[in-house]
């Protein structure tokens, strides 16, 4: 590619010798076109043509390539792949195991939560029972106290009533006596004769209605 430019430049500058130079160079270039078989010796130094198309080196490349591939295949399939597969399955196993353990722990946590809830409910229940029992006891004591107080009050009331009745009875008797005495005196003072029976009857008759 570049030799053409080079040649053109050469011809432009050296017009006198141009023809000979160009002919020489093209001749030399033509000799370098690879012709398999002729190129066997010394192609490395000259490197004319495309190295990829140098048939002479194909056998060498193919031989060493096959050796390399076989070695690589054997090492990979015998050593590397089983190992990586084992590591990957181990990891898979570990991950699965951990997930299962986590699931188990979750289950346990849920159970513990349920037990806690149950204990809480039991305690609440018990507390309510105790409260109810206490309330019943207090109620019973209260009832007993009230009953006792009622009884006492009733007794006091009865006693008071008795005394009031007695007082009233004595007061009535006293009043009747006073009234009878006063009536007798009055009758005597007016010049009558006192008839105790009649006076008593009259006083009783007047006092019935008044004292009741």
């Amino acid at each position, binding site marked *: *590619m570049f030799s*053409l430019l080079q040649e053109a430049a050469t*011809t432009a500058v050296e017009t006198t010798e141009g*023809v000979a130079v*160009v002919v020489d160079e093209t001749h030399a270039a033509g000799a370098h076109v*690879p012709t398999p078989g002729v190129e066997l010796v010394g192609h490395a130094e000259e490197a004319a*043509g*495309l190295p990829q*198309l140098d048939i002479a080196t194909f056998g060498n490349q193919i031989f060493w390539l096959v050796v390399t591939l076989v070695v690589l295949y054997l090492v990979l399939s015998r050593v590397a792949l089983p190992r990586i597969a084992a590591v990957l399955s181990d990891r898979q196993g570990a991950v699965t195991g951990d997930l299962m353990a986590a699931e188990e722990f979750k289950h346990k946590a849920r159970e513990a939560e349920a037990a806690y809830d149950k204990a809480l409910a039991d305690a609440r229940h018990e507390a309510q029972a105790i409260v109810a029992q206490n309330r019943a006891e207090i109620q019973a004591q209260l009832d007993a106290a009230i009953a006792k107080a009622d009884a006492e009050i009733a007794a006091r009331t009865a006693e008071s009533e008795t005394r009031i009745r007695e007082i009233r009875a004595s007061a009535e008797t006293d009043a009747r006596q006073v009234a009878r005495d006063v009536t007798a005196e009055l009758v005597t003072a007016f010049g009558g004769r006192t008839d105790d029976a009649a006076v008593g009857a009259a006083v009783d008759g007047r006092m019935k209605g008044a004292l009741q």
Partner: protein
Amino acid sequence: MEGNIGELGQYIGVGLTAFGMGFAALGVGNVAGNFLSGALRNPSAAAGQTATLFIGMAFAEALGIFSFLVALLLMFAV
């Protein structure tokens, strides 16, 4: 420049094969661009199609590489 019209034609041919590589670039760009526009419409389906993308690009590029090979053959082996 005397008498070497064959070599001149050879190099002109090499230059012309470079167009083939340019057209292969168009093809590869077309593949990638269409993949991108499809992937932007439906990004969830794009991940599964990267293998197809690479196969398509490889096929498009292979033809450009063929023209490159023709250029090399013209330059060195003819």
